[in-house]
């Protein structure tokens, strides 16, 4: 899996790298960060059911600023998770993405959105347990957390791989939770999109890591 390396940034024994696979993810994340920087939030339209009446919802400026900051930070954390060559750094970035995703959703002051975000927050917090446990078991059994060295040496126990996978499922569970319509109905469309993008890229990256080590 490690053959198509394009760039490496040695930093001690954790060697950050971009392969042909991760460079695509990197570009995707970078495009969405730029979109979050330059785009304005859309105005959701609420239609009064059964009549012709409708209303436009404005996004308040402070909400816009907060969501934009969270979305940009989430994009940068996603880029970090893609580039890093260290499993513990990866788990930290994953946990970070989880927190920022809660932030993006929780900015909307709506009872239903907030209760959805609360449940999401609980799952994110539970997700950190298998995530860190997986990284710790890898460190305990192989003595290193560098993906570069693990790719050469191997010997990562399957239970650690499973824990890491479950942890990432917990952190980036937005694709499942987004089934709750209230989150997607919340205002601030380009920023809400960052939740999908970050969790999608996180899944793709963890698959790459688990196939490599």
């Amino acid at each position, binding site marked *: 899996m490690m053959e198509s390396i394009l760039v490496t940034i040695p930093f001690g024994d954790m060697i950050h790298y971009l392969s042909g696979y991760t460079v695509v993810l990197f570009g995707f994340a970078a495009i969405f960060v730029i979109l979050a920087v330059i785009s304005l939030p859309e105005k959701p339209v609420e239609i009064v059911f059964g009549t012709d009446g409708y209303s436009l919802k404005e996004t308040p400026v402070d909400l816009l600023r907060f969501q934009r900051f969270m979305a940009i930070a989430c994009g940068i954390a996603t880029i970090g998770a893609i580039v890093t060559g260290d499993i*513990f750094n990866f788990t*930290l970035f994953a*946990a*970070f993405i*989880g*927190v920022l995703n*809660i*932030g993006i959703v*929780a900015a909307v*002051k709506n*009872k239903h959105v*907030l*209760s959805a*975000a*609360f449940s999401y*927050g*609980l799952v*994110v*917090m*539970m997700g*950190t*347990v*298998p995530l*860190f*446990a997986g*990284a*710790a*078991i890898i*460190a*305990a*059994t*192989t*003595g290193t957390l560098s993906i570069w060295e693990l790719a050469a040496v191997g010997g990562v126990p399957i239970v650690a791989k499973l824990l890491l996978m479950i942890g990432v499922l917990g952190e980036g569970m937005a694709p499942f939770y987004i089934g709750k319509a209230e989150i997607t109905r919340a205002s601030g469309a380009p920023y809400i999109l960052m939740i999908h993008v970050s969790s999608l890229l996180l899944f793709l990256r963890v698959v790459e890591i688990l196939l490599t080590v």
Partner: protein
Amino acid sequence: MIEFFAEMDIIYKIGLAVAFIAIIVAFSAIVRQKDEIHLLIIVDLIEITGLVVIALLATDLAEALILPGLVVGVAEIMAVSELWLVKEGLQNVRPIRRLDIEVLHTAPPIIGAVLTAYGIFLTGFTGGLIAGLGLALFFLGKSTTENFLSSENASGYAWVLWVLAFLIFILFPSQWFLALMAAAVGIMIKVMAKIALVGTMRGDGS
């Protein structure tokens, strides 16, 4: 490190088994509990059992990994509990009046001054802690509404001093004593400013 683990393999496995039993117990509590605030507390408990798994590494690496893990956990519980407060509409609670007893008018300046002086004499993290406790006591006793811009500024500059000290350590190792002193003073002021802020928390919305 690999030999190290081979040596304590059985202990590590027992510890891991105990930690995972604790995790399972905590998760079963989550399933039974319905009240949201209790859910939040139990989830924090679950996170701590996760940190136990890291702590079982029992090396310097474990220490290096626990600190960020702890920070992530604290950040998450703060975010989610703030969210819960907003959701339940509990953000603007009635201000809590401070204790209005005689000893809080007279004692804090004296004890605060003594603790602060002793802390500055100690320097370093411990000194910052002691001096900060003195300041916290002082602010607790005083019904103050002054702004804390200067202490925040001092904290910022102290951080710069601390970073500079590390740069001196790396770039000019011969000047280690200067760097040590700069780092000690920097961390003292930083910790002092942080702990002093505790004394200003009265829940009056200021």
